[in-house]
């Protein structure tokens, strides 16, 4: 292993990997045929087949990501049935919501990056910053599991899970550069270097995503990231994966003339460390231990300068603070015979927050979670797969909760599978929902003049009972795959912001309602080098849900068609359409919107390197409302150059 001319701050890794290195024999002999080799595709490394997975899954692979011309993960979610997407940075970052209206945080989803839950404890469980954790170029695929499944994907998998899988370091060796520039001051850049050998591979990438933001927003918005990944083979049975990174999301938010929401730059700075140790016990058993640490810091500050309210004049309005979370998870995966596979384990997690402006104290709020989980995949008969699982959680903020899930997959004929399943899940209230205390004081005496938010400390977890019927069909002759999901999701004790006349805002378990509907996705390769992805959903979330801003559009469609042409030219067309719907802070519904994007790219050799030049035009049609009646997504075009050796 060459450790001398590379980053010298990795001597420990080099040492570990070198210690694990065995001598490579010089010439072929009978030993190559007779000796044992380590088990690589061990029981935990073999993913479930799509037709045996308990639920509907949309996979956006690397090729689709590249052909889409998307600039971040949220942008891609418009290709997932049931997802509504916003490009606004106003509340935190661009995000996707599933079966619920866009909100500030969209906390009813789980976002995993390489198995690490990346929701923001500080921002009420917001999923937006997590979607920005890694550059698109570092992503191998995005798996969106539509439907509640806390048993398999953790406590946050209330309505669904976005599982981002980054590229293995071994798959991204060498140097790559990507530059993107165009309308709306788009200035994106990506730089990566990967190195290593058979025993250890590493990748370091840095990038930024920057533009002027939505028309009507303050802007500009910029995401700057650095990410490291190291994959080390520590001998025949052990692998160690190390990850570390930082993302700084800097957004121009607020509005001129709004004293309580003045134009300013808000930054969300998130850094993480993650270590995964995987130990192969034998051909049928694996042990995995994951430790992760994340810290986040939000700076969002401006003086209140409303001359009509002299007592507050110049007083601070602040939403800043910091927090961190640590998690230790152990998972044992085992196979019992040919028909039963089990994964079980436990997680200890601690989240802590400090925010004077949000809690009116400098004290640290700590939440402890203990979780036990078990998932089984049982082949009852060759045509019947039963997935049964459950997660028990004890938390210092929400008490005890059990989230079970059961789903039966029936292969009715080769290539055709029916699914039926029921699951229950819970979302523990965030610290802010439980303990918030936002007050404004007299600038001289410090006396409390206004209590804006006051947590009641009585908020209970919100619950979901989800039932679904699914179908997955594959027609090899047509190269087509269809997934249909019909669902009924009953949410009880939904946590909402409340305000009684003259009193402070608070959070309470206020609504019980049912979301039901159906959605399908079609993946079809109609002819050579062409692919069509079609996602469509029909959702009724109006039943008992009183607040129209929480509702999701009735019909949504996403489509992507791509074709490779002679001369290594790729052409793609993306289209999405959304029914009229109300935005979180709007009084009336926004009209139906549609968006059409096109991308044309040509692959070529440039200076002895693989290169691709592409032109993307997003939103060929008129500007459409996004997130707020004041924000518009206008047509924008950009050029991109990618170089890789």
């Amino acid at each position, binding site marked *: 292993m060459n450790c001398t001319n590379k980053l010298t701050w990795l001597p420990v890794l080099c040492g570990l990997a070198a210690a694990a290195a065995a001598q490579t024999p010089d010439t*072929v002999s009978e030993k190559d045929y007779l000796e044992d080799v380590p088990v690589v*595709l061990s029981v935990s490394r073999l993913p479930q*087949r799509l037709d045996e997975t308990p639920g509907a899954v949309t996979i956006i692979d690397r090729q689709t990501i590249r052909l889409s011309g998307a600039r971040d993960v949220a942008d891609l979610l418009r290709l997932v049935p049931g997802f509504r997407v916003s490009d606004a940075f106003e509340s935190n970052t661009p995000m996707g919501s599933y079966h619920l209206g866009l909100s500030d945080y969209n906390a009813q989803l789980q976002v995993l990056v390489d198995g690490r839950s990346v929701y923001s404890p500080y921002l009420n469980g917001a999923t937006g910053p997590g979607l920005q954790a890694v550059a698109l170029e570092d992503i191998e695929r995005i798996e969106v599991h539509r439907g509640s499944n806390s048993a398999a994907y953790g406590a946050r998998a209330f309505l669904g899970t976005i599982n981002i899988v980054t590229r293995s370091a*071994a*798959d991204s060796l060498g140097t790559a550069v990507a530059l993107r520039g165009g309308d709306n001051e788009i200035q994106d850049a990506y730089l990566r270097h990967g190195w290593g050998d058979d*025993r250890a591979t590493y990748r370091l990438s840095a990038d930024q995503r920057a533009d002027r933001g939505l028309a009507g927003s303050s802007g500009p918005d910029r995401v700057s990231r650095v990410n490291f990944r190291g994959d080390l083979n520590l001998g025949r049975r052990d692998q160690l994966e190390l990850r570390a990174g930082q993302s700084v999301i800097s957004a121009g938010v607020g509005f001129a003339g709004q004293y309580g929401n003045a134009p300013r730059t808000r930054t969300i700075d998130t850094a993480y460390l993650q270590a995964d140790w995987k130990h192969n016990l034998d051909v049928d058993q694996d042990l995995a231990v994951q430790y992760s640490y994340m810290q986040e810091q939000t700076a969002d500050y401006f003086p209140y300068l409303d001359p009509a309210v002299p007592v507050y004049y110049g007083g601070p309005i602040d939403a800043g603070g910091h927090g961190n979370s640590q998690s230790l998870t152990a998972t044992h995966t085992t196979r019992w015979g040919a028909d039963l596979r089990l994964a079980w384990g436990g997680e200890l997690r601690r989240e802590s927050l400090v925010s004077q402006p949000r809690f009116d104290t400098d004290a640290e709020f700590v939440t402890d979670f203990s979780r036990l989980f078990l998932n089984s995949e049982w082949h009852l008969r060759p045509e019947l797969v039963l997935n049964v699982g459950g997660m028990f959680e004890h938390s210092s903020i929400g008490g005890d909760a059990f989230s079970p899930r059961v789903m039966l997959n029936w292969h009715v004929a080769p290539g055709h599978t029916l699914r039926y399943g029921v699951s229950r899940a819970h979302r523990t209230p965030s610290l802010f929902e439980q303990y918030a205390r936002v007050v404004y004081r007299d600038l001289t005496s410090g006396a409390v003049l206004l209590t804006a938010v006051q947590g009641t400390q009585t908020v209970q977890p919100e619950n979901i009972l989800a039932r679904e019927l699914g179908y997955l069909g594959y027609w090899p002759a047509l190269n087509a795959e269809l997934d249909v999901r019909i669902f009924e999701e009953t949410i009880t004790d939904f946590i909402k912001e409340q305000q009684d006349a003259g009193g402070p805002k608070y959070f309470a378990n206020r609504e019980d309602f049912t979301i039901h509907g159906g959605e399908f996705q079609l993946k079809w390769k109609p002819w050579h080098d062409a692919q069509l992805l079609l996602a469509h959903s029909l959702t009724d979330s109006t039943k008992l849900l009183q607040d129209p801003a929480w509702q999701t559009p009735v019909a949504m469609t996403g489509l992507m068609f791509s074709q490779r042409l002679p001369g290594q030219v790729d052409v793609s067309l993306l289209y999405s359409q959304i029914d009229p719907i109300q935005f979180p802070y709007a009084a009336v519904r926004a009209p139906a919107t549609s968006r059409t994007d096109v991308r044309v790219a040509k692959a070529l050799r440039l200076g002895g390197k693989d290169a691709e030049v592409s032109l993307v035009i997003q939103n060929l049609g008129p500007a459409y409302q996004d997130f707020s009646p004041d924000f518009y997504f206008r047509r924008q075009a950009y050029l991109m150059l990618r170089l890789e050796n």
Partner: protein
Amino acid sequence: MKVALRYLLQLLAPLGLAVGVNAAEPAVLVVSSERGAAYQEAAAAAAGEIGRVGDPRHEVQQLALAELANYRGSAPRLYIALGSEACAALARSATTAPVLCTLLPRVGFERIVRESGRRTGPAFSALYLNQPLGRQLDLVRVALPQARRVGVLWGPDSQFNAPPLESAAQARGLQVVGATIKPDELVFSGLKTILEQADLLLAIADPHIYNSNSIQNILLASFRAQVPMLAFSPAYVRAGALMAVYSTPAQIGQQAGALARAALQGQALGAPQHPLQFEVSVNEHVARSLGLKLDAASLTERLRRLERGS
């Protein structure tokens, strides 16, 4: 019975009880490179096969290579060398008795021939451990009828197989997608090309490419790309290759025994040959994960039938 007793004594040899060997007058002396289980299994099968007809003149004695220097018995009528080191040692020795090298791959045997200056023929021949290329390609056709492009990573020890593989593939309507990995070069870039273009990865043994360090990345990358590996040993199937065609040490030993018996009966050792008996092994978990239904026993049977031409 006598053979069995003798063999039992030889099993004790590794324990340091080899002193008794000088009393013997064996017809066949089986010399193993090592005392590992595979060598023992092959030796036992060879002894069993040679002694099957019950001819008292067909005595078999087994030695580990390390014990050969201390061998005081009379010269055997035939040597069976198990493994490359035993073959190389006998190739260099002054023995006049014919030597049948086995439990070694063809490339290893040919290197010994080159380095020792021996000529293959009635006095020095081999039964290879590795499978003929055609058999491996037949398995591709039988198990993965949709596959057309066979990816191969060539290293310094396997490169010479490229032209014969090319013509064997052509004869079967298959296309070879090859990438050459130079010594001291990592497999990643070549592997990337293969995984982008091929329907499966045919692993040809070469320690520069396939070893316990590299197999991790190769198998993971090929699985990610949904390009299954057809390997050369059951250990690789256990590790995560989709399947392998191989001969067990017992099958090798048995065939070597049959060749030895024929030699004792006056038939000259023929040209070096590949094993006739083989097994197919399938990693059912990997197959299921890839959406494939493969049964090792029926694949073995179909492949045998194909070779018999029935």
